[in-house]
């Protein structure tokens, strides 16, 4: 009995197009998501994110490997009862109002009839749509529809929330609102698995991250560990007056105290200091600096080799 909320083991999936060509969507990906954490799933378009998510919720059957949700095989009834899912692009039955549709989802999810009203109210209150419960979904903005999507995902109080491209197409304000909501849900004990193109938001709220590229898992693990390997050295120095740093190729940044700083690869620290020895007045500090997720993502997804990390 494992303690993982999600357990992907060597999952492979190949699609066959109408013309007979084969597309390898997933090439033996493996990763685990611990219970109670927010897990970010990143990758460029066509990397296989949606296929991985669909195999998690049972919409797609992997060709080989296994996907488990709290030790239940993904796609089975026990697994589905634990999941709340928000797809990437969904047109809901827009002739209905949020309350009607939410009640329908609650009854499909098996919520007892006496609890349905209260659960729907609770879910709509959480996402801030209770006042608009009687309006038609066709009148909602994209941000409101996404909020409703979260409401339908949480109405049955799932243990795992799976969100595909939650914030795509939303303005920064709406994005921030949704991310705050996710943090609140995590504090209530939910495990949250969400995919996004916005790496800043993944870096901001996620405990763990995985990056997928062309069906291969490039990196997966706790955020601190993943980014710890990717560290730079930040040099803070004072130059002699005869030296003009702007002539240098490096992007030196000047602060108010007249000191200059730059982040370089760890391996380049010593050679750089040697080359500047004659122009340096003082080395103020040498510190390790974590590379951002964006840099890591860019490095991993522009590699030519297709072997897994």
């Amino acid at each position, binding site marked *: 009995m494992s303690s993982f909320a999600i357990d992907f083991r060597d999952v492979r999936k190949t699609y066959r197009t109408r013309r007979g060509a084969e597309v390898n969507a997933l090439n033996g990906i493996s990763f685990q998501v611990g219970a109670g954490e927010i897990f970010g799933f990143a990758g460029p378009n066509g990397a296989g994110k949606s296929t991985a998510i669909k195999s998690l919720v049972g919409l797609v059957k992997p060709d080989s490997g296994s996907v488990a949700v709290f030790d239940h095989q993904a796609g089975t009834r026990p697994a589905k009862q634990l999941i709340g899912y928000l*797809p990437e692009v969904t047109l809901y*039955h827009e002739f209905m109002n949020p309350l009607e549709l939410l009640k329908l989802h609650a009854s499909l999810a098996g919520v007892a009839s006496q609890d349905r009203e209260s659960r729907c109210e609770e879910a709509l209150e959480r996402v801030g749509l209770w006042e608009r419960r009687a309006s038609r979904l066709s009148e909602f903005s994209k941000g409101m529809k996404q909020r409703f999507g979260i409401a339908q995902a949480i109405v049955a109080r799932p243990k795992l929330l799976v969100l595909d491209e939650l914030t795509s197409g939303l303005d920064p304000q709406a994005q921030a609102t949704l991310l705050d909501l996710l943090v609140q849900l995590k504090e209530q004990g939910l495990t949250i698995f969400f995919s996004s193109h916005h790496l800043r938001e993944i870096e901001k709220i996620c405990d763990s991250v995985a990056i997928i590229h062309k069906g291969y898992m490039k990196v997966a693990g706790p955020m601190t560990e993943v980014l710890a390997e990717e560290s730079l050295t930040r040099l803070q120095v004072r130059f002699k007056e005869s030296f003009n740093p702007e002539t240098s190729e490096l992007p030196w940044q000047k602060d108010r105290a007249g000191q200059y700083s730059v982040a370089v690869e760890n391996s380049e620290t010593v050679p750089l200091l040697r080359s500047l020895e004659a122009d340096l007045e003082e080395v103020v500090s040498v510190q390790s600096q974590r590379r951002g997720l964006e840099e890591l993502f860019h490095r991993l997804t522009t590699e030519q080799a297709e072997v897994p990390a």
Partner: protein
Amino acid sequence: MRETLILTKLYFLGSVRRQVHLATLFLGVILLMLPSYINAFSLGINAFERVSKDFGLTLIAYFAVGMAILIASSSIPRDLESRSLYPILARPVERYQYIAAHFLSLCALLACSLLFLGLCLTTSVSALTRALDLSIFVAIFTSFLQASVVGVLTMTVSTVASPALAGTAGAFIFLVGSLPGAFVRFFLVEDRENQFAATAATALKSVIPNLSVFSLKDPIVHQIDFHPSYLLAVVFYALVWIAVALVASSILFGRRDL
């Protein structure tokens, strides 16, 4: 079962919101107005009653099949296109329940429409003959069964094909299934030089339901008796074909990656 009924209600309401029932209303008005344009072709009250029943029941039968094909060919592809079925199938809902829900909502829509049209026809015939004849509903019931069978087969094709292809297949099934056996024999089987076509036609007739068993318009219109077990046999015939189609479509849809 519970999930099936919940989804049936959802899809039924969806069809109603798409104003499918307006077509029914339109035909209902035509049926109510039958007396005014049939009368010119009939000779006396007796003939009028038979002619208008015949005409009305034929219209209703074709309308039912047309409605079934149109709705069944597009209901599942529309869900796939809009991805509105993703959050539903991510719930503890089996795929066969989803298919069954679409079929049951089609049946509910057909039943409501045909009941209404039957009332319109009965009203217009009774208005002139001054006698209430409810036997029309027997023919309408078998038309309902026929439309359900054609509809479920169209739906089966729609799980793996586009709406246009599914609709064409449905129309083909209706035409071939209604074709008199002699027609096939006359043009193909009797011509021994065309053995391949003869075999193909006979094979086709055996995999497509024989829809001529559902046509009870003639005995109702001409008041000819038939064996009481016949109607029961026809009901079971429809049920078993519907069951076969639902199992087949569950398999086809179950293999599909969404």
